């Protein structure tokens, strides 16, 4: 294989590696090469807003080659079903030019010093790691080649590699990586900036459908999830919290629960007053079996102070939103041009209100964490999306210094953003601290999980659009009513002021009003976009039809010529109208787009969105009966850059995102509150998609020349308005409120 240093045209915009990149080579115990890569990775280069303050050295990868040529690659990031435990090592292995069958994957413990950022969120793992992972693999290859060149006394440029072997064609000699791995350990590692990378056409692992590295164990039921953690002497715990959000523990009568079968400990715990980011008050019950701990709940008599929750009811929130909208626009978030004047002189004005509910993440594996406290030191096994943030929360809530914690990452049975929060980790540590020397597995019931989520917050939008004499969109305004303290929106409750058509028309105003909530909110798959796309693309569908056109055509007209629209803030990626055009045109073609109903009450709907650096246009074909909606087929066109790292997983993830979105709209998902008490409890009143509602899904990739970006999120948002726009096309009924409810 020939290696040349060739970057894609826009490669430099992905991750620019700093000057202090250091490789560290060492001899593996028992012989062989161990390679660490300290890569300073500026978060800002990615447009990653969070944690941008410390652009410090990140140890991105750790690869070792044993004398028997076994390649061990550490998977540093959490695995929550997004496939990174497979995809990141694929990047390393391809540039190393070994055979995938030689590769063993080891899940890293949490160690910021060694591994830098270890998280799963925001579809950032691929763009953050695309170059560092490859460079690390390429560096290891270069050292092995150099070691072989020294042994054979030839120039390294005369050598080629393939499938974990090094070849000297001129003399017909070859050897396996393991034969020179120990010798390579004594060499000086190359500069990561200049180490040659493969021409993507030469990839042998990246881009090849690859089965997940844990799949063989999963189909046999092997115990690899957080909930499967088994430590000798372990006991099981539940943590009973107040029935209402914001509730505080006054006093607990625990005697009856203590006498319950199997129960070993009952411990009232007063938290740190910060249920959202710390430790909520509660009563822990520890028993020999989880079911026995859970049974003993009913024996507790607890006096809770629920006064803070009074008035935090869905009906009250709705009434407040109505009042806020009636009061007129809120505080300006974005004010372009003079939309008021344009509206006043518009040939036609449209106005509408849209809203969507709180929804829960409901990952299949309920929250859990296993913890052991011994002599002031903690050992913790957690399925978390942000284990490093978990360490910080442990320190804040319980005063446990990070150096006193050994944190093991366990595979998570789904994340969807729920496990960005580490409340269950803090609870498990608090219980373990109260029962020192005993390993404790805290496990939530499904009801606990449904009632103590960090929900996607509900929101209300009052929209207005002006259409000019020639059918052009001349003005667009949105008054967004959301949750917050008056200054800052609650987590995941803000408006992204890049929401289309912002940046595409001259006269536009986005304003915001807030009401307080004590309910915990947070990021749910494609946060912000999962709701805003519904608002943007539904109302623009209304505009398009009123203007005598159709949404794909209106979007193409608004997008205009191919160019980059800068993001409203310096941390977010620019919006490429050309890439947007390409996916829209692609899905129009693959779906045979026509707005006119094919049959009575059966039609197609379209929507586009740009989120998490991915461009997705989707078309849904649906039939609307009297009381039911059947989705026949969904067409997806997506651009996440030049390369799909693992097509096996990527297609699955897109289908899953589409099904997730359809369930949000159609299954009846809504979390409601009465005085802070969540009214839903399980999968009967918060339904998820089931197999009969699975439509055919056709995916078309539009491969642009940009470096690859993430896929956990951006395929979800468009499917919801594509569906509701189809419902309108089929019936004339405009869906302006989620979930979809057909009135009889």
């Amino acid at each position: 294989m020939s290696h040349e240093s060739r970057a894609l045209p826009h490669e430099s915009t992905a991750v620019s590696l700093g000057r202090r990149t250091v490789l560290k080579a060492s001899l593996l115990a028992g012989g062989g090469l161990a390679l660490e890569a300290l890569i300073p990775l500026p978060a800002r280069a990615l447009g990653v807003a969070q944690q941008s303050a410390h652009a410090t050295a990140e140890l991105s990868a750790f690869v070792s080659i044993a004398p028997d040529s076994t390649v061990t690659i550490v998977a540093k990031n959490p695995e929550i079903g997004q496939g990174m435990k497979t995809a990141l090592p694929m990047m390393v292995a391809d540039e190393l030019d070994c055979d995938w069958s030689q590769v063993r994957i080891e899940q890293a413990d949490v160690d910021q010093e060694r591994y830098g950022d270890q998280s799963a969120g925001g579809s950032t793992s691929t763009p953050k790691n695309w170059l560092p992972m490859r460079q690390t693999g390429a560096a290891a290859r270069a050292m092995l080649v150099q070691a072989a060149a020294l042994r054979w006394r030839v120039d390294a440029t005369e050598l080629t590699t393939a499938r974990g072997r090094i070849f000297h064609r001129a003399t017909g000699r070859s050897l396996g990586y393991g034969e020179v791995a120990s010798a390579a350990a004594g060499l000086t590692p190359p500069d990561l900036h200049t180490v040659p990378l493969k021409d993507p056409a030469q990839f042998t692992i990246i881009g090849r459908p690859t089965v997940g590295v844990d799949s063989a164990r999963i189909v046999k039921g092997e115990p690899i999830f957080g909930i499967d953690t088994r430590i000798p002497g372990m006991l099981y715990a539940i943590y009973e919290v107040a029935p209402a959000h914001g509730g505080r523990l006054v006093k607990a009568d625990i005697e009856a629960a203590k006498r319950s079968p199997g129960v070993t400990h009952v411990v009232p715990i007063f938290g740190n007053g910060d249920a959202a980011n710390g430790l909520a008050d509660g009563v822990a019950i520890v028993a020999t079996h989880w079911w026995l701990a859970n049974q003993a709940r009913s024996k507790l008599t607890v006096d809770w102070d629920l006064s803070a929750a009074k008035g935090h009811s869905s009906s009250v929130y709705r009434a407040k939103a109505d009042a806020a909208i009636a009061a007129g626009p809120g505080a300006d978030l974005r004010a372009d041009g003079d939309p008021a004047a344009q509206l006043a002189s518009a040939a036609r004005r449209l106005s509408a209100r849209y809203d969507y509910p709180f929804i829960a993440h409901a990952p299949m594996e309920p929250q859990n964490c296993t913890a052991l406290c011994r002599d002031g030191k903690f050992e913790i096994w957690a399925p978390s999306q942000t284990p490093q943030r978990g360490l910080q929360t442990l320190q804040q809530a319980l005063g446990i210094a990070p150096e006193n914690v050994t944190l093991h990452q366990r595979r998570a049975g789904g994340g969807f953003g729920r496990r960005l929060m580490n409340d269950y980790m803090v609870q498990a540590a608090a219980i373990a601290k109260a029962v020192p020397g005993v390993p404790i597995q805290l496990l939530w019931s499904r009801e606990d999980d449904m009632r103590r989520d960090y929900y996607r917050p509900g929101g209300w939008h009052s929209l207005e659009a002006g259409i000019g004499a020639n059918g052009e969109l001349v003005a667009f305004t949105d008054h967004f009513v959301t949750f917050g303290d008056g200054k800052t929106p609650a987590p995941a409750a803000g408006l992204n002021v890049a929401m289309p058509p912002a940046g595409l028309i001259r006269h536009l105003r986005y304003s915001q009003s807030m009401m307080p909530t004590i309910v915990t909110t947070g990021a749910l798959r494609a946060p912000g976009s999962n709701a805003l796309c519904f608002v943007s693309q539904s109302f623009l569908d209304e505009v398009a039809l009123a203007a005598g056109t159709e949404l794909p055509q209106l979007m193409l007209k608004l997008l205009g010529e191919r160019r980059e629209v800068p993001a409203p803030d310096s941390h977010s990626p620019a919006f490429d109208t050309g890439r947007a055009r390409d996916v829209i045109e692609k899905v129009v073609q693959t779906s045979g787009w026509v707005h006119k109903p094919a049959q009575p009450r059966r039609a197609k709907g379209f929507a586009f969105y740009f989120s998490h650096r991915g461009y997705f246009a989707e078309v849904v074909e649906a039939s609307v009966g009297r009381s039911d909606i059947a989705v026949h087929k969904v067409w997806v066109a997506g651009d996440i850059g030049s390369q799909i790292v693992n097509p096996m997983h990527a297609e699955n993830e897109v289908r899953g995102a589409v099904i997730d979105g359809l369930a949000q709209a159609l299954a009846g998902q809504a979390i409601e509150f009465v005085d802070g008490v969540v009214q839903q409890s399980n999968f009967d009143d918060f339904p998820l998609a089931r197999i009969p509602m699975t439509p055919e899904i056709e995916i078309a990739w539009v491969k642009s020349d940009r470096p690859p970006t993430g896929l956990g999120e951006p395929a979800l948002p468009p499917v919801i308005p594509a569906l509701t726009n189809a419902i309108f096309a089929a019936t004339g009924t405009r869906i302006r409120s989620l979930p979809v409810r057909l009135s009889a």
Partner: protein
Amino acid sequence: MPYRLNINGAIHQVDVPPEMPLLWVLRDELGLAGTKFGCGKGLCGACTVHVDGAAQRSCQLRVGSLGQARIQTIEHVGGTKIGARLQAAWLRIDVMQCGYCQAGQIMSAAALLGQTAHPNDEQLNAAMTGNICRCGCYHRIRSAIRIAAGMEEEPSHVA
């Protein structure tokens, strides 16, 4: 209460309250953690096992009601011809994303194929509708069942 349970072809002696669901006997008493807890109400199918060959939600089965019933779990289903074919098909097209529900999915699928060698779409939907996959891997679940049943050669929903 002491019970002698016939699980995966062996007799296991346990001493637990009669109301304890089989799920927790498997997970917390016998160390068979492949059977998963999802909802505790028989709504999601993650805890599906076979009782005398039929798919049952183990979170709803009191240990005191089991008697001499033959119980099979995901750890053992690979020892049957249908179970082995399903596991191979699951792996061939890499059905899963997070993978948490897949043990229950495979157990429901094995019970289906044990009863109906070549299920049509309706039969497949009816047998599998009790198993939620939050990641939405339903296309591949269908395909894998059809591959295992010899009804589909080339997986249709794989890259």
